[in-house]
């Protein structure tokens, strides 16, 4: 998903052209970055230059905005994004144990991607599932009432599924 193709570039340009018809077009910069991340999984540096050119905004400004917001990834991410909820409810119910277990199991720190590009570990703030805390989200799926042990089993299941597909 992360390669840059002419088709994707054209899509971005079309979108920006549409925005230019609106009042205050510059205000859509964050919306454009959301689009870009939706296409590539992250916001590639090269694309920032394209956006800068098309929107007539200095790349430095775009860089400033993209780095300010936690939501934007500046590096490619793994196949699965594992977000550990570190909201208050999850924290009170032992999210930290879950996070430590994941760090150990995946061998990465928060914000990093495993070497096999399978998992990116992230922290999230309240996934809105406090009733089943502690909670993690893998891609779009919520898993609740986890323990240090069950979360490791969960990762094993994902690894196994990925192994079966490539094999």
């Amino acid at each position, binding site marked *: 998903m992360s390669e840059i193709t002419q088709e994707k570039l054209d899509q971005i340009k079309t979108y920006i052209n549409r925005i230019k018809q609106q009042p205050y077009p510059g205000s859509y910069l964050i919306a454009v970055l*959301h689009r870009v991340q939706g296409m590539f999984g992250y916001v590639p540096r090269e694309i920032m230059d394209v956006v800068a050119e098309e929107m007539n905004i200095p790349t430095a400004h775009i860089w400033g905005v993209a780095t300010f917001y936690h939501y934007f990834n500046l590096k490619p991410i793994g196949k699965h994004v594992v977000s550990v909820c570190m909201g208050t*409810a999850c924290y009170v119910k032992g999210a930290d144990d879950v996070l430590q277990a994941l760090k150990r199991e995946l061998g990465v720190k928060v914000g990093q991607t495993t070497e096999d590009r399978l998992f990116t570990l992230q922290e*999230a703030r*309240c996934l809105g599932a406090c009733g089943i805390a502690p909670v993690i989200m893998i891609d779009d799926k919520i898993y609740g009432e986890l323990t240090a042990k069950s979360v490791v089993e969960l990762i094993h299941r994902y690894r196994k599924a990925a192994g079966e597909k490539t094999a």
Partner: protein
Amino acid sequence: MRAKSILTLCDGPTCIHKNSRVIREALEAEICKHGLSEEVGIHLSGCLGMCSKGPILIINPGYTIYGGITVEDIPEIVQEHLVHRQPVARLVVQEDHLYNRFFRIFGDVDFFGRQMRIALRNCGIIDPESIDDYLSVRGYEALAKVLTGMSPREVIAEVKKAGLRGRGGAGFPTGLKWDITARETSDEKYVICNADEGDPGAFMDRSAIEGDPHTVLEGITIGGYAIGAVKGIVYIRAEYPLAIKRLEKAIAAARENGLLGNNILGSNFSFDIEIRLGAGAFVCGEETALIHSIEGRRGMPTPRPPYPSVKGLFGKPTLINNVETWANIPVIILDGGEWFSTVGTETSKGTKVFALAGKVHNTGLIEVPMGTTLREIIYDIGGGIPDGKKFKAVQTGGPSGGCLPEDYLDTQIDYESLAAAGSIMGSGGMIVIDEDSCMVNLAKFFLEFTQDESCGKCTPCRGGTKRMLEILTRITEGNGKEGDIEKLERLGNMIRKASLCGLGQSAPNPVLSTLKNFRHEYEEHIYQKKCRAGICSNLVTYEITEKCIGCGACRRVCPVNAIAGKRQEQHVINQETCIKCGQCFTTCKFDAIVKA
């Protein structure tokens, strides 16, 4: 167009037992006979909790509740109620409903009985993706009332009369804010709905939008009319994909039905609503930062004044309110500000939605009248603390709020009482904490959050929170020193006074409130090197008791080989080598390892 009638038939076990399924067939046949199939929708619901009066049938619009009906009553109900729109009085359930027309259908189950749903009145009751459903529960009636018979000034007067205050945290009087913005003269004004919901541990706004997006849109549109704006913007967290999807769908449906766009409902008022996504920055919940974010910039706050009501989005007068604030507006217009102001306390009117979580039995979203006590929420609605544990504290207001101990459980929910007790109302996060949590560690958790989210613009917040965090970290690691408590207090008060925006001004609150109410825990950490909850790992020692059967699981899992022992004999931990990782504790299946 005649609004569709929605029939809700209770499909709970008691009602089924009392023949509700046969009644359903009879209803369908009768509706068909009158050619009303297009105009009437039948829903089944789970147990409505009024089992003694079953079978229960509710007809909307109007919330008419029929009870004890038989197949013989069906023709009369269809003829009178659905055709002539006259409820059949003799079959209507007569009961002293708790309050007005809200939440009566949920009977007297404690979880619901103490609640009163105004902002969430339709959540879980209507299909949020259907504008027809919303119309059937008097949806957009408030907007129609405003556009056909009220001047903007009258709308503002009604909101003032209601005494509604902002639900985003600060509690500023909503009517006054509208008034100030309406008085500004400008050819361009904006209305914003703040759905950024940054408090980690709260999901009120998300649920309100997911459960009933049209209410929020209707509220915003009324606000736009009142202040003379042409455009509304919902600023919502990108982390809420379902809420975003439902909002988009609702906006499209409203446009199609002439409820947004040019000349709404044939009036000369034109207004449209657009969605803008946040991108994961807590500070963007702050209104000036939020406005900068909509403008496509870094979300950094600016000093007020000028307030957004004077100089807001694109430099134009802007009215900004929280999701829940907006959701109250249609009710205030329909039922009147006077009625609204009868709910609640002297200074805080209406209800408040809370996301109840942490160590309580019933976690979830609740809406209670202002003036309800913390005890009622935690014990009656929440069902108390699970696993026989002892209550320690309740945290409200998230990273800007405080922790209240048992002595404060009879505090009433209102802006002033919570502030006087040393916490804040906040946007609605409410986390119950039991004896298993360490208050110093909890304070550190919140400070880590605010420190991480500090935008870095002003020094007290950027540097000050960092220093505080260093001290807290030191204390939790067992290196606390004499004078640390005083230093925390001094720093906290300084940051509170000197920071640029609400983030910094409130960042020390969790620390200051735990210092006030749980000072002994700080002292234990510093002087006795003890963490009573066993959370701060450096201050914990693990010991193996005689329950040990010598299975060796802990010995194998220990990463530093600190555990020794023969098979089937009690093992021991070498405290010198132990790094207190706790793995043995989680591994032991026999509860033989204890924290001390």
